[in-house]
């Protein structure tokens, strides 16, 4: 059998949403936990250095994954989503935006959900990048300076919340009008 199980568009959507977006969310959750759990460390200086190095890699990974999610979303998935169908076409299954707009019950998935997905992930990526920079540059200070730790935790928590909301909206859209 020579039938392709998944189209290229479908594979890119999975890479965008599950591999990179999901990976970033897992890394953000782990980084949030680490920022809180490791901050009041009584560990020797060497151990704190080691912990902060792992934390830095974790946040850098989250930031890189978020940026890749954003770029693949904008450059690969979004153009396919917003493609205009030929005039007179009745089967809109290959044109997700038009499919969503053709039904009053699903119009909000474009006007609200996709509009948020177009912009908010960039904010999440910027926040993760800022924390990744501080984690890589300041290393153990991020665990030993309470104010810095609190601010990094707050920014990562906002980033996690935004990325989660965007991820859920993406699932909604892909359930109703998948890129196949």
């Amino acid at each position, binding site marked *: 059998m020579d039938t392709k199980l998944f189209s290229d568009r479908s594979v890119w959507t999975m890479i965008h949403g599950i591999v990179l977006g999901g990976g970033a969310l897992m890394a953000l959750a782990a980084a949030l936990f680490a920022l809180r759990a490791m901050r009041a460390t009584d560990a020797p200086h060497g151990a704190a250095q080691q912990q902060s190095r792992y934390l830095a890699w974790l946040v850098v990974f989250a930031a890189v994954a978020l940026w890749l999610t954003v770029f693949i979303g904008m450059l690969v998935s979004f153009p396919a989503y*917003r493609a205009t169908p030929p005039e007179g076409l009745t089967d809109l299954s290959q044109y997700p935006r038009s499919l969503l707009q053709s039904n009053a019950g699903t119009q909000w998935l474009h006007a609200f959900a996709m509009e948020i997905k177009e912009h908010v992930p960039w904010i999440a990526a910027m926040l993760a990048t800022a924390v990744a920079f501080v984690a890589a540059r300041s290393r153990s200070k991020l665990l030993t300076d309470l104010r810095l730790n609190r601010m990094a935790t707050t920014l990562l928590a906002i980033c996690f919340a935004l990325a989660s909301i965007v991820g859920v909206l993406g699932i909604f859209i892909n359930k109703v009008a998948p890129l196949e």
Partner: protein
Amino acid sequence: MTTMSEGHEGAPNGAALAAFLAAGIGAFAVGFFVIINETGLFAAPALYGPAGGVSGRMTFATVVWLIGWAVLHTRWKDREVTSKGVYAATLVLIALGVVLSFPPVWQIFG
């Protein structure tokens, strides 16, 4: 023994605070370019045709973020900066950026 401290240990905190505040500026820039597009004040050109105007809006916001970060980093990297005001400004800018990116808000300005 390593313990938590409220103060500033070791290197100055300026570079870290510059990164945080720049992220706030970037977040606000995202919301700003979105709202001026939605209200018809300024539509950023599509820098990547298939993606449409979002490619221009987000590229402009990213450029603002990076320029803001570069300027703040240059000025603050060797300084100890009072963190409270910077943290507050960062959170306000992020909140504004998110709110301005929220479609129901566009109708208020539209």
